[in-house]
Protein backbone atom coordinates (compact mmCIF):
# COMPACT_ATOMS: atom_id res chain seq x y z
CA UNK A 1 0.00 0.00 0.00
CA UNK A 2 1.24 3.47 -0.80
CA UNK A 3 0.93 6.19 1.77
CA UNK A 4 0.98 9.78 0.73
CA UNK A 5 2.09 12.35 3.21
CA UNK A 6 2.67 16.04 2.94
CA UNK A 7 5.93 15.92 4.88
CA UNK A 8 8.17 18.32 3.01
CA UNK A 9 11.26 16.22 3.73
CA UNK A 10 9.82 13.31 1.73
CA UNK A 11 10.97 13.28 -1.86
CA UNK A 12 13.36 16.10 -1.13
CA UNK A 13 17.01 15.59 -1.88
CA UNK A 14 18.92 15.98 1.33
CA UNK A 15 21.91 17.46 -0.47
CA UNK A 16 20.30 20.15 -2.58
CA UNK A 17 17.02 20.64 -0.72
CA UNK A 18 15.24 20.22 -4.08
CA UNK A 19 12.53 17.79 -4.97
CA UNK A 20 13.91 15.59 -7.81
CA UNK A 21 10.41 15.27 -9.25
CA UNK A 22 10.20 19.00 -10.00
CA UNK A 23 11.16 19.93 -13.57
CA UNK A 24 13.47 22.96 -13.48
CA UNK A 25 12.15 26.11 -15.10
CA UNK A 26 13.23 27.30 -18.52
CA UNK A 27 16.96 28.00 -18.64
CA UNK A 28 18.45 28.68 -22.08
CA UNK A 29 21.16 26.16 -22.97
CA UNK A 30 23.57 28.80 -24.21
CA UNK A 31 23.68 30.34 -20.74
CA UNK A 32 25.85 27.45 -19.58
CA UNK A 33 28.76 28.60 -21.77
CA UNK A 34 29.29 32.11 -20.32
CA UNK A 35 28.39 30.70 -16.90
CA UNK A 36 31.22 28.18 -17.18
CA UNK A 37 33.59 30.89 -18.38
CA UNK A 38 32.60 33.06 -15.43
CA UNK A 39 33.26 30.25 -13.01
CA UNK A 40 36.64 29.52 -14.61
CA UNK A 41 37.54 33.20 -14.53
CA UNK A 42 37.22 33.17 -10.74
CA UNK A 43 38.69 29.76 -10.02
CA UNK A 44 41.58 29.60 -12.54
CA UNK A 45 43.72 32.41 -11.05
CA UNK A 46 43.40 30.81 -7.61
CA UNK A 47 44.47 27.43 -9.01
CA UNK A 48 47.30 29.11 -10.93
CA UNK A 49 48.55 30.69 -7.74
CA UNK A 50 48.42 27.29 -6.05
CA UNK A 51 50.74 25.86 -8.74
CA UNK A 52 53.29 28.58 -7.96
CA UNK A 53 53.49 27.81 -4.27
CA UNK A 54 56.88 26.61 -3.07
CA UNK A 55 55.43 23.82 -0.91
CA UNK A 56 58.78 22.61 0.46
CA UNK A 57 59.48 25.95 2.13
CA UNK A 58 55.83 26.89 2.71
CA UNK A 59 55.90 26.65 6.49
CA UNK A 60 59.07 28.70 6.69
CA UNK A 61 57.68 31.36 4.36
CA UNK A 62 54.51 31.94 6.35
CA UNK A 63 56.27 31.84 9.74
CA UNK A 64 59.03 34.33 8.99
CA UNK A 65 59.21 37.16 11.51
CA UNK A 66 57.65 39.74 9.17
CA UNK A 67 54.92 37.32 8.07
CA UNK A 68 54.00 36.43 11.64
CA UNK A 69 53.92 40.09 12.60
CA UNK A 70 51.70 40.90 9.61
CA UNK A 71 49.32 38.00 10.29
CA UNK A 72 49.01 38.84 13.98
CA UNK A 73 48.41 42.52 13.18
CA UNK A 74 45.85 41.65 10.49
CA UNK A 75 43.82 39.36 12.74
CA UNK A 76 43.95 41.80 15.61
CA UNK A 77 42.98 44.89 13.61
CA UNK A 78 40.32 43.09 11.56
CA UNK A 79 38.73 41.74 14.75
CA UNK A 80 38.79 45.20 16.34
CA UNK A 81 37.31 46.76 13.19
CA UNK A 82 34.54 44.17 13.21
CA UNK A 83 33.68 45.16 16.78
CA UNK A 84 33.68 48.83 15.75
CA UNK A 85 31.39 47.96 12.82
CA UNK A 86 29.01 46.10 15.14
CA UNK A 87 28.91 48.89 17.73
CA UNK A 88 28.25 51.58 15.13
CA UNK A 89 26.59 49.52 12.42
CA UNK A 90 23.80 47.80 14.38
CA UNK A 91 22.29 51.10 15.59
CA UNK A 92 22.85 52.63 12.15
CA UNK A 93 21.02 49.76 10.43
CA UNK A 94 18.21 49.98 13.01
CA UNK A 95 17.77 53.70 12.38
CA UNK A 96 17.83 53.22 8.62
CA UNK A 97 15.36 50.32 8.71
CA UNK A 98 12.99 51.50 11.44
CA UNK A 99 13.46 55.24 11.89
CA UNK A 100 11.36 57.91 10.26
CA UNK A 101 13.86 60.73 10.20
CA UNK A 102 13.91 63.44 7.54
CA UNK A 103 16.77 62.94 5.10
CA UNK A 104 17.03 59.27 5.93
CA UNK A 105 17.36 58.10 2.34
CA UNK A 106 20.23 60.55 1.88
CA UNK A 107 21.92 59.12 4.98
CA UNK A 108 21.49 55.62 3.55
CA UNK A 109 23.17 56.63 0.29
CA UNK A 110 26.05 58.30 2.13
CA UNK A 111 26.66 55.26 4.33
CA UNK A 112 27.03 53.17 1.18
CA UNK A 113 29.61 55.47 -0.39
CA UNK A 114 32.67 53.56 0.98
CA UNK A 115 31.29 50.49 -0.81
CA UNK A 116 31.83 52.06 -4.24
CA UNK A 117 34.63 54.48 -3.41
CA UNK A 118 38.19 53.48 -4.42
CA UNK A 119 39.80 52.57 -1.08
CA UNK A 120 42.73 54.93 -1.78
CA UNK A 121 40.27 57.80 -1.90
CA UNK A 122 38.87 56.60 1.41
CA UNK A 123 42.40 56.76 2.80
CA UNK A 124 42.83 60.33 1.56
CA UNK A 125 39.48 61.25 3.10
CA UNK A 126 40.49 59.76 6.44
CA UNK A 127 43.81 61.58 6.26
CA UNK A 128 41.97 64.86 5.69
CA UNK A 129 39.96 64.14 8.81
CA UNK A 130 42.37 62.54 11.27
CA UNK A 131 45.75 63.49 9.74
CA UNK A 132 48.03 65.98 11.52
CA UNK A 133 46.61 68.84 9.47
CA UNK A 134 43.16 67.23 9.26
CA UNK A 135 39.75 68.51 10.28
CA UNK A 136 39.83 66.77 13.67
CA UNK A 137 43.53 65.83 13.66
CA UNK A 138 44.77 69.27 14.66
CA UNK A 139 42.66 69.54 17.77
CA UNK A 140 43.42 65.90 18.59
CA UNK A 141 47.11 66.58 18.36
CA UNK A 142 46.67 69.34 20.96
CA UNK A 143 45.25 66.63 23.24
CA UNK A 144 48.29 64.49 22.49
CA UNK A 145 46.43 62.07 20.20
CA UNK A 146 48.09 61.09 16.94
CA UNK A 147 46.05 58.75 14.86
CA UNK A 148 47.54 58.77 11.35
CA UNK A 149 50.23 56.13 10.72
CA UNK A 150 49.34 54.18 13.90
CA UNK A 151 47.57 50.86 14.50
CA UNK A 152 44.46 52.91 15.35
CA UNK A 153 44.61 54.31 11.82
CA UNK A 154 44.60 50.75 10.44
CA UNK A 155 41.45 50.00 12.45
CA UNK A 156 39.79 53.23 11.29
CA UNK A 157 40.65 52.53 7.64
CA UNK A 158 39.30 48.99 7.88
CA UNK A 159 36.14 50.06 9.72
CA UNK A 160 35.53 52.79 7.13
CA UNK A 161 35.46 50.33 4.23
CA UNK A 162 33.81 47.43 6.12
CA UNK A 163 30.93 49.28 7.83
CA UNK A 164 28.62 49.37 4.76
CA UNK A 165 28.77 45.57 4.47
CA UNK A 166 27.33 45.14 7.95
CA UNK A 167 24.78 47.93 7.56
CA UNK A 168 23.50 46.66 4.20
CA UNK A 169 23.14 43.03 5.37
CA UNK A 170 21.48 43.94 8.63
CA UNK A 171 19.18 46.59 7.20
CA UNK A 172 17.98 44.12 4.58
CA UNK A 173 17.33 41.49 7.24
CA UNK A 174 15.47 44.01 9.41
CA UNK A 175 13.24 45.07 6.52
CA UNK A 176 12.50 41.46 5.63
CA UNK A 177 11.69 40.58 9.25
CA UNK A 178 9.28 43.53 9.46
CA UNK A 179 7.92 45.16 12.57
CA UNK A 180 4.99 42.90 13.33
CA UNK A 181 6.76 40.78 15.95
CA UNK A 182 7.97 43.97 17.61
CA UNK A 183 4.41 45.29 17.82
CA UNK A 184 3.31 42.01 19.43
CA UNK A 185 6.18 42.16 21.93
CA UNK A 186 5.33 45.76 22.88
CA UNK A 187 1.73 44.69 23.49
CA UNK A 188 3.05 42.09 25.93
CA UNK A 189 4.74 44.87 27.88
CA UNK A 190 8.28 44.73 26.49
CA UNK A 191 10.07 48.09 26.24
CA UNK A 192 12.09 49.00 23.13
CA UNK A 193 15.42 47.75 24.52
CA UNK A 194 13.91 44.43 25.62
CA UNK A 195 12.27 44.06 22.20
CA UNK A 196 15.60 44.71 20.49
CA UNK A 197 17.46 42.19 22.65
CA UNK A 198 14.88 39.42 22.83
CA UNK A 199 12.97 39.71 19.56
CA UNK A 200 14.55 41.89 16.86
CA UNK A 201 18.19 40.74 17.01
CA UNK A 202 17.39 37.01 17.39
CA UNK A 203 15.06 37.27 14.37
CA UNK A 204 17.70 38.90 12.17
CA UNK A 205 20.52 36.73 13.52
CA UNK A 206 21.39 35.14 10.12
CA UNK A 207 21.63 38.57 8.51
CA UNK A 208 23.65 39.94 11.40
CA UNK A 209 26.03 36.97 11.25
CA UNK A 210 26.63 37.20 7.52
CA UNK A 211 27.08 40.96 7.80
CA UNK A 212 29.63 40.47 10.57
CA UNK A 213 31.56 37.85 8.58
CA UNK A 214 31.51 39.98 5.44
CA UNK A 215 32.80 43.06 7.23
CA UNK A 216 35.51 40.98 8.92
CA UNK A 217 36.57 39.64 5.52
CA UNK A 218 36.55 43.12 4.00
CA UNK A 219 38.62 44.47 6.91
CA UNK A 220 41.09 41.62 6.60
CA UNK A 221 41.63 42.29 2.90
CA UNK A 222 41.81 46.09 3.21
CA UNK A 223 44.81 47.58 1.38
CA UNK A 224 44.33 50.97 -0.33
CA UNK A 225 42.91 53.01 2.53
CA UNK A 226 45.37 51.43 4.96
CA UNK A 227 48.54 52.19 3.01
CA UNK A 228 47.35 55.76 2.36
CA UNK A 229 46.18 56.61 5.85
CA UNK A 230 48.28 54.30 8.03
CA UNK A 231 51.42 53.63 6.01
CA UNK A 232 53.41 50.42 6.10
CA UNK A 233 55.36 50.01 9.29
CA UNK A 234 56.18 46.45 10.28
CA UNK A 235 54.28 45.31 13.37
CA UNK A 236 52.39 48.62 13.58
CA UNK A 237 50.49 49.17 10.35
CA UNK A 238 51.79 46.57 7.91
CA UNK A 239 48.90 44.12 7.65
CA UNK A 240 49.00 40.91 5.62
CA UNK A 241 47.84 42.45 2.29
CA UNK A 242 50.50 45.14 2.63
CA UNK A 243 53.10 42.48 3.40
CA UNK A 244 52.06 40.53 0.28
CA UNK A 245 52.40 43.65 -1.85
CA UNK A 246 55.82 44.44 -0.39
CA UNK A 247 57.19 40.89 -0.73
CA UNK A 248 55.98 40.66 -4.33
CA UNK A 249 59.10 42.65 -5.34
CA UNK A 250 61.70 41.23 -3.02
CA UNK A 251 60.51 37.66 -2.37
CA UNK A 252 57.80 36.46 -4.82
CA UNK A 253 57.66 33.01 -3.16
CA UNK A 254 56.76 34.59 0.16
CA UNK A 255 54.12 36.76 -1.53
CA UNK A 256 52.45 33.70 -3.08
CA UNK A 257 52.60 31.76 0.19
CA UNK A 258 50.99 34.63 2.13
CA UNK A 259 48.40 35.11 -0.63
CA UNK A 260 47.40 31.49 -0.27
CA UNK A 261 47.00 32.06 3.45
CA UNK A 262 44.58 34.92 2.72
CA UNK A 263 42.69 32.73 0.24
CA UNK A 264 42.37 30.06 2.93
CA UNK A 265 40.96 32.59 5.39
CA UNK A 266 38.52 33.87 2.75
CA UNK A 267 37.32 30.34 1.94
CA UNK A 268 36.77 29.58 5.63
CA UNK A 269 34.83 32.82 6.03
CA UNK A 270 32.60 32.20 3.01
CA UNK A 271 32.00 28.61 4.08
CA UNK A 272 31.01 29.77 7.54
CA UNK A 273 28.27 32.01 6.17
CA UNK A 274 27.02 30.07 3.18
CA UNK A 275 27.10 26.52 4.48
CA UNK A 276 24.45 27.23 7.06
CA UNK A 277 21.76 26.14 4.63
CA UNK A 278 18.18 27.37 4.57
CA UNK A 279 17.73 27.18 8.34
CA UNK A 280 14.81 29.18 9.64
Amino acid at each position, binding site marked *: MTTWTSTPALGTSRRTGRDPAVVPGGLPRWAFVPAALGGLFVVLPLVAMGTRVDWTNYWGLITSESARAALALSLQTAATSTVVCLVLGIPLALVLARGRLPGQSLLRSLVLVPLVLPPVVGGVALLSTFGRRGLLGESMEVLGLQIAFSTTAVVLAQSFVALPFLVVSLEGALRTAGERYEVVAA*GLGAGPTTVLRRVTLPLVWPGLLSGTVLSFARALGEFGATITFAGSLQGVTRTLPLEVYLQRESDPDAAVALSLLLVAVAVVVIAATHHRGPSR
Partner: protein
Amino acid sequence: MTFELTATVPSRGVDVRLDVAAGRTLALLGPNGAGKSTALGLAAGTLRPHDGDITLDGRTLARARGGRRTAWVAAHRRRVALLAQDPMLFPHLSVRDNVAFGPRAQGRSRRAAATAAKGWLDATGLGDLADRRPAALSGGQAQRIAIARALAARPRLLLLDEPMAALDVDVTPQLRQTLQHLLAEQTTVLATHDVLDALLLADEVAVVDGGRVVERGPTAEVLSRPRSAFAASIAGLNLLTGTWTGDGVATATGEVVHGHATHPEVPLGTAMTAVFRPAAVALHLADPHGSPRNTFRGTVRTVEPRGDLLRVRTERLAADVTPQAVAELSLVPGRSVVATVKAAEVDVYRR
Protein backbone atom coordinates in the same frame (compact mmCIF):
# COMPACT_ATOMS: atom_id res chain seq x y z
CA MET B 1 -16.58 51.95 32.18
CA THR B 2 -13.02 50.75 32.06
CA PHE B 3 -12.19 51.32 28.42
CA GLU B 4 -13.40 54.31 26.48
CA LEU B 5 -12.30 55.37 23.07
CA THR B 6 -13.44 58.39 21.12
CA ALA B 7 -11.23 59.11 18.18
CA THR B 8 -11.03 60.34 14.63
CA VAL B 9 -8.38 59.34 12.12
CA PRO B 10 -9.17 61.43 9.02
CA SER B 11 -6.45 59.75 6.93
CA ARG B 12 -8.38 56.49 7.29
CA GLY B 13 -11.86 57.97 7.29
CA VAL B 14 -12.48 56.70 10.80
CA ASP B 15 -14.56 58.40 13.49
CA VAL B 16 -15.39 55.93 16.26
CA ARG B 17 -16.71 55.93 19.79
CA LEU B 18 -16.50 52.73 21.85
CA ASP B 19 -16.66 51.69 25.44
CA VAL B 20 -16.30 48.38 27.24
CA ALA B 21 -17.16 47.70 30.87
CA ALA B 22 -14.73 45.80 33.07
CA GLY B 23 -14.67 42.09 32.33
CA ARG B 24 -16.98 42.40 29.32
CA THR B 25 -16.40 41.58 25.67
CA LEU B 26 -17.36 43.96 22.90
CA ALA B 27 -17.47 42.66 19.33
CA LEU B 28 -16.75 45.07 16.50
CA LEU B 29 -18.66 43.65 13.57
CA GLY B 30 -18.05 44.95 10.12
CA PRO B 31 -16.67 44.18 6.66
CA ASN B 32 -13.00 44.49 5.74
CA GLY B 33 -11.92 48.09 5.59
CA ALA B 34 -14.74 49.26 7.87
CA GLY B 35 -12.30 50.65 10.42
CA LYS B 36 -12.18 47.78 12.94
CA SER B 37 -8.42 47.35 12.74
CA THR B 38 -7.93 51.10 12.98
CA ALA B 39 -9.95 51.13 16.20
CA LEU B 40 -7.79 48.31 17.59
CA GLY B 41 -4.59 50.08 16.49
CA LEU B 42 -5.69 53.20 18.36
CA ALA B 43 -6.25 51.15 21.51
CA ALA B 44 -2.98 49.24 21.14
CA GLY B 45 -0.89 52.36 20.56
CA THR B 46 0.21 51.63 17.01
CA LEU B 47 -1.93 54.42 15.58
CA ARG B 48 -2.38 58.00 16.73
CA PRO B 49 -5.75 59.71 16.83
CA HIS B 50 -6.03 63.08 15.10
CA ASP B 51 -8.66 64.04 17.63
CA GLY B 52 -9.89 62.12 20.59
CA ASP B 53 -9.47 60.55 23.99
CA ILE B 54 -8.57 56.99 24.88
CA THR B 55 -8.75 55.94 28.52
CA LEU B 56 -8.32 52.60 30.23
CA ASP B 57 -9.13 52.09 33.90
CA GLY B 58 -9.11 55.84 34.47
CA ARG B 59 -5.70 56.32 32.85
CA THR B 60 -5.46 58.42 29.71
CA LEU B 61 -3.65 56.43 27.06
CA ALA B 62 -3.89 59.04 24.33
CA ARG B 63 -5.40 62.44 23.87
CA ALA B 64 -5.19 64.66 20.83
CA ARG B 65 -6.82 67.84 19.65
CA GLY B 66 -6.65 68.77 16.00
CA GLY B 67 -3.64 66.54 15.32
CA ARG B 68 -1.73 67.84 18.33
CA ARG B 69 -0.91 65.18 20.91
CA THR B 70 -1.51 66.28 24.48
CA ALA B 71 -1.12 62.87 26.11
CA TRP B 72 0.48 59.66 24.93
CA VAL B 73 1.32 56.36 26.61
CA ALA B 74 3.69 54.14 24.62
CA ALA B 75 2.33 50.77 23.51
CA HIS B 76 4.49 48.76 25.92
CA ARG B 77 3.23 50.73 28.93
CA ARG B 78 -0.46 50.37 28.10
CA ARG B 79 -1.12 46.81 29.27
CA VAL B 80 -3.06 46.30 26.06
CA ALA B 81 -2.31 43.04 24.25
CA LEU B 82 -3.21 42.46 20.62
CA LEU B 83 -3.87 39.08 19.03
CA ALA B 84 -4.20 39.14 15.25
CA GLN B 85 -5.31 36.48 12.79
CA ASP B 86 -1.71 35.39 12.43
CA PRO B 87 -0.54 34.03 15.81
CA MET B 88 2.90 35.70 15.42
CA LEU B 89 4.59 33.40 17.92
CA PHE B 90 8.26 34.31 18.23
CA PRO B 91 9.87 31.63 16.01
CA HIS B 92 13.15 31.56 17.93
CA LEU B 93 11.53 30.79 21.29
CA SER B 94 9.92 27.60 22.54
CA VAL B 95 6.20 27.58 23.26
CA ARG B 96 6.96 27.93 26.98
CA ASP B 97 9.27 30.92 26.46
CA ASN B 98 6.70 32.52 24.17
CA VAL B 99 4.07 32.37 26.88
CA ALA B 100 6.57 33.47 29.53
CA PHE B 101 7.63 36.44 27.38
CA GLY B 102 5.08 38.89 28.79
CA PRO B 103 5.75 38.19 32.48
CA ARG B 104 9.52 38.30 31.85
CA ALA B 105 9.29 41.56 29.90
CA GLN B 106 7.31 43.04 32.76
CA GLY B 107 10.16 42.31 35.14
CA ARG B 108 9.00 39.12 36.85
CA SER B 109 11.60 36.55 37.81
CA ARG B 110 12.43 33.66 35.51
CA ARG B 111 10.77 31.24 37.90
CA ALA B 112 7.60 33.29 38.36
CA ALA B 113 7.33 33.73 34.60
CA ALA B 114 7.76 29.99 34.02
CA THR B 115 5.05 29.22 36.59
CA ALA B 116 2.68 31.72 34.98
CA ALA B 117 3.41 30.25 31.55
CA LYS B 118 2.68 26.74 32.75
CA GLY B 119 -0.61 27.89 34.25
CA TRP B 120 -1.80 29.52 31.05
CA LEU B 121 -0.62 26.63 28.88
CA ASP B 122 -2.58 24.23 31.04
CA ALA B 123 -5.60 26.51 30.86
CA THR B 124 -5.55 26.24 27.06
CA GLY B 125 -5.06 22.48 27.32
CA LEU B 126 -1.75 22.55 25.47
CA GLY B 127 0.65 22.04 28.36
CA ASP B 128 2.40 19.12 26.70
CA LEU B 129 3.51 21.28 23.77
CA ALA B 130 5.62 23.52 26.03
CA ASP B 131 8.98 22.41 24.63
CA ARG B 132 8.03 22.67 20.97
CA ARG B 133 9.08 25.37 18.57
CA PRO B 134 6.25 27.36 16.96
CA ALA B 135 7.16 25.88 13.56
CA ALA B 136 6.13 22.44 14.87
CA LEU B 137 2.57 23.53 15.75
CA SER B 138 -0.62 23.37 13.73
CA GLY B 139 -2.40 26.63 12.96
CA GLY B 140 -5.05 26.04 15.60
CA GLN B 141 -2.50 25.10 18.25
CA ALA B 142 -0.39 28.16 17.45
CA GLN B 143 -3.38 30.45 17.79
CA ARG B 144 -4.32 28.94 21.16
CA ILE B 145 -0.72 29.38 22.34
CA ALA B 146 -0.89 32.98 21.16
CA ILE B 147 -4.00 33.46 23.31
CA ALA B 148 -2.18 31.97 26.30
CA ARG B 149 0.78 34.29 25.63
CA ALA B 150 -1.47 37.35 25.44
CA LEU B 151 -3.32 36.47 28.65
CA ALA B 152 -0.10 35.60 30.50
CA ALA B 153 0.89 39.26 30.06
CA ARG B 154 -2.18 40.06 32.19
CA PRO B 155 -3.49 42.79 29.91
CA ARG B 156 -6.04 45.25 31.23
CA LEU B 157 -7.50 45.13 27.75
CA LEU B 158 -7.24 42.31 25.23
CA LEU B 159 -7.69 43.08 21.54
CA LEU B 160 -8.57 40.25 19.17
CA ASP B 161 -8.38 41.06 15.47
CA GLU B 162 -10.16 38.36 13.45
CA PRO B 163 -8.58 35.61 15.56
CA MET B 164 -10.25 32.80 13.58
CA ALA B 165 -9.88 34.24 10.10
CA ALA B 166 -6.68 32.40 9.14
CA LEU B 167 -7.73 29.01 10.53
CA ASP B 168 -9.29 25.96 8.92
CA VAL B 169 -13.01 25.72 9.46
CA ASP B 170 -12.67 22.47 11.40
CA VAL B 171 -10.42 23.92 14.13
CA THR B 172 -12.37 27.13 14.77
CA PRO B 173 -14.95 25.51 17.10
CA GLN B 174 -12.17 24.43 19.44
CA LEU B 175 -10.58 27.87 19.41
CA ARG B 176 -13.94 29.51 20.06
CA GLN B 177 -14.41 27.21 23.01
CA THR B 178 -10.96 28.11 24.37
CA LEU B 179 -11.74 31.80 24.01
CA GLN B 180 -15.20 31.48 25.52
CA HIS B 181 -13.65 29.81 28.54
CA LEU B 182 -10.73 32.24 28.92
CA LEU B 183 -12.42 35.54 28.14
CA ALA B 184 -15.02 35.25 30.90
CA GLU B 185 -13.34 37.80 33.17
CA GLN B 186 -11.19 39.55 30.61
CA THR B 187 -12.03 42.99 29.24
CA THR B 188 -11.88 42.39 25.50
CA VAL B 189 -12.54 44.04 22.17
CA LEU B 190 -13.03 41.50 19.39
CA ALA B 191 -12.99 42.60 15.77
CA THR B 192 -14.68 40.12 13.49
CA HIS B 193 -16.83 39.79 10.42
CA ASP B 194 -18.18 36.43 11.59
CA VAL B 195 -21.46 36.74 13.36
CA LEU B 196 -20.87 33.46 15.18
CA ASP B 197 -17.82 34.91 16.95
CA ALA B 198 -19.92 37.81 18.14
CA LEU B 199 -22.79 35.58 19.20
CA LEU B 200 -20.66 33.15 21.20
CA LEU B 201 -17.98 35.44 22.62
CA ALA B 202 -19.37 38.94 22.98
CA ASP B 203 -21.68 40.54 25.51
CA GLU B 204 -22.19 43.53 23.28
CA VAL B 205 -21.87 44.28 19.61
CA ALA B 206 -20.91 47.47 17.84
CA VAL B 207 -21.51 47.37 14.10
CA VAL B 208 -18.83 49.33 12.27
CA ASP B 209 -19.33 50.48 8.71
CA GLY B 210 -17.62 53.23 6.76
CA GLY B 211 -15.41 54.12 9.71
CA ARG B 212 -18.32 54.69 12.09
CA VAL B 213 -20.25 52.72 14.66
CA VAL B 214 -23.65 52.48 13.02
CA GLU B 215 -25.37 50.36 15.60
CA ARG B 216 -24.63 48.98 19.03
CA GLY B 217 -26.26 47.08 21.83
CA PRO B 218 -26.41 43.70 23.55
CA THR B 219 -25.33 40.95 21.16
CA ALA B 220 -28.61 39.04 21.10
CA GLU B 221 -30.60 42.18 20.46
CA VAL B 222 -28.45 43.51 17.61
CA LEU B 223 -28.28 40.15 15.89
CA SER B 224 -31.95 39.25 16.23
CA ARG B 225 -33.25 42.74 15.55
CA PRO B 226 -30.71 44.48 13.36
CA ARG B 227 -31.64 48.08 12.60
CA SER B 228 -29.20 48.66 9.77
CA ALA B 229 -29.19 46.72 6.50
CA PHE B 230 -25.53 46.06 7.10
CA ALA B 231 -26.09 44.52 10.52
CA ALA B 232 -28.77 42.34 9.00
CA SER B 233 -26.56 41.12 6.19
CA ILE B 234 -23.71 40.21 8.53
CA ALA B 235 -26.16 38.63 10.91
CA GLY B 236 -27.08 36.45 7.93
CA LEU B 237 -30.64 37.73 8.09
CA ASN B 238 -32.99 39.09 5.47
CA LEU B 239 -34.20 42.55 6.25
CA LEU B 240 -36.96 44.48 4.46
CA THR B 241 -37.99 47.97 5.41
CA GLY B 242 -41.31 49.70 4.83
CA THR B 243 -44.26 51.30 6.57
CA TRP B 244 -46.85 49.79 8.92
CA THR B 245 -50.23 49.02 7.36
CA GLY B 246 -51.90 47.68 10.47
CA ASP B 247 -51.24 44.00 9.67
CA GLY B 248 -48.01 44.12 7.72
CA VAL B 249 -45.10 46.12 6.36
CA ALA B 250 -45.58 47.72 2.95
CA THR B 251 -42.29 47.85 1.11
CA ALA B 252 -41.26 50.42 -1.47
CA THR B 253 -41.69 47.76 -4.19
CA GLY B 254 -45.32 47.13 -3.33
CA GLU B 255 -45.30 43.89 -1.31
CA VAL B 256 -46.88 43.67 2.10
CA VAL B 257 -44.85 41.54 4.45
CA HIS B 258 -46.80 39.81 7.18
CA GLY B 259 -45.17 38.57 10.32
CA HIS B 260 -45.03 38.50 14.06
CA ALA B 261 -45.09 42.13 15.19
CA THR B 262 -43.51 43.11 18.48
CA HIS B 263 -45.31 46.46 18.57
CA PRO B 264 -48.62 45.94 16.69
CA GLU B 265 -50.15 49.02 18.28
CA VAL B 266 -47.91 51.52 16.48
CA PRO B 267 -49.61 54.15 14.29
CA LEU B 268 -50.18 53.44 10.62
CA GLY B 269 -47.30 54.60 8.44
CA THR B 270 -44.62 54.03 11.09
CA ALA B 271 -41.28 52.94 9.66
CA MET B 272 -40.95 49.21 10.32
CA THR B 273 -38.51 46.43 9.60
CA ALA B 274 -39.26 42.81 8.75
CA VAL B 275 -36.52 40.28 9.52
CA PHE B 276 -36.27 36.57 8.67
CA ARG B 277 -33.56 33.96 8.32
CA PRO B 278 -32.41 32.70 4.89
CA ALA B 279 -33.23 29.13 5.99
CA ALA B 280 -36.89 30.14 6.32
CA VAL B 281 -37.06 31.14 2.66
CA ALA B 282 -38.28 28.66 0.04
CA LEU B 283 -37.75 29.17 -3.68
CA HIS B 284 -40.16 28.31 -6.50
CA LEU B 285 -40.25 28.86 -10.23
CA ALA B 286 -43.93 29.91 -10.20
CA ASP B 287 -46.36 31.34 -7.66
CA PRO B 288 -47.41 28.62 -5.21
CA HIS B 289 -51.14 29.44 -5.30
CA GLY B 290 -53.23 29.58 -2.20
CA SER B 291 -50.54 29.41 0.44
CA PRO B 292 -50.67 31.90 3.30
CA ARG B 293 -47.14 33.03 2.68
CA ASN B 294 -45.25 36.19 1.87
CA THR B 295 -44.06 36.05 -1.71
CA PHE B 296 -41.30 38.02 -3.37
CA ARG B 297 -40.40 37.94 -7.04
CA GLY B 298 -36.78 38.20 -8.00
CA THR B 299 -33.89 37.05 -10.14
CA VAL B 300 -31.08 34.82 -8.95
CA ARG B 301 -27.86 36.78 -8.64
CA THR B 302 -25.37 34.43 -6.94
CA VAL B 303 -25.23 30.89 -5.59
CA GLU B 304 -22.56 30.04 -3.03
CA PRO B 305 -21.95 27.26 -0.51
CA ARG B 306 -23.07 27.79 3.04
CA GLY B 307 -22.34 24.71 5.16
CA ASP B 308 -24.34 21.78 3.74
CA LEU B 309 -26.70 24.17 1.98
CA LEU B 310 -26.38 26.65 -0.84
CA ARG B 311 -27.08 30.31 -0.30
CA VAL B 312 -28.99 31.74 -3.23
CA ARG B 313 -29.11 35.51 -3.39
CA THR B 314 -31.67 37.50 -5.35
CA GLU B 315 -31.69 41.28 -5.56
CA ARG B 316 -32.98 41.69 -2.03
CA LEU B 317 -33.10 38.33 -0.35
CA ALA B 318 -30.92 35.41 0.62
CA ALA B 319 -32.27 31.87 0.76
CA ASP B 320 -30.53 28.78 2.11
CA VAL B 321 -31.68 25.81 0.08
CA THR B 322 -30.48 22.26 -0.48
CA PRO B 323 -28.18 21.45 -3.41
CA GLN B 324 -30.95 19.11 -4.69
CA ALA B 325 -33.40 22.02 -4.87
CA VAL B 326 -30.86 24.12 -6.72
CA ALA B 327 -30.34 21.30 -9.21
CA GLU B 328 -34.06 20.57 -9.68
CA LEU B 329 -35.00 24.20 -10.22
CA SER B 330 -31.73 24.88 -12.10
CA LEU B 331 -31.14 27.97 -10.03
CA VAL B 332 -28.43 29.71 -12.01
CA PRO B 333 -27.80 33.45 -12.03
CA GLY B 334 -30.41 35.18 -14.17
CA ARG B 335 -33.21 32.72 -13.34
CA SER B 336 -36.53 34.28 -12.27
CA VAL B 337 -37.78 32.89 -8.98
CA VAL B 338 -40.53 33.38 -6.45
CA ALA B 339 -39.35 33.40 -2.85
CA THR B 340 -41.83 32.54 -0.12
CA VAL B 341 -41.60 32.75 3.64
CA LYS B 342 -44.20 31.85 6.24
CA ALA B 343 -45.55 34.77 8.26
CA ALA B 344 -44.67 32.87 11.44
CA GLU B 345 -40.99 33.04 10.46
CA VAL B 346 -40.97 36.82 10.07
CA ASP B 347 -40.31 39.24 12.92
CA VAL B 348 -41.55 42.75 12.46
CA TYR B 349 -40.39 45.58 14.64
CA ARG B 350 -40.11 49.33 14.76
CA ARG B 351 -37.06 50.96 13.19
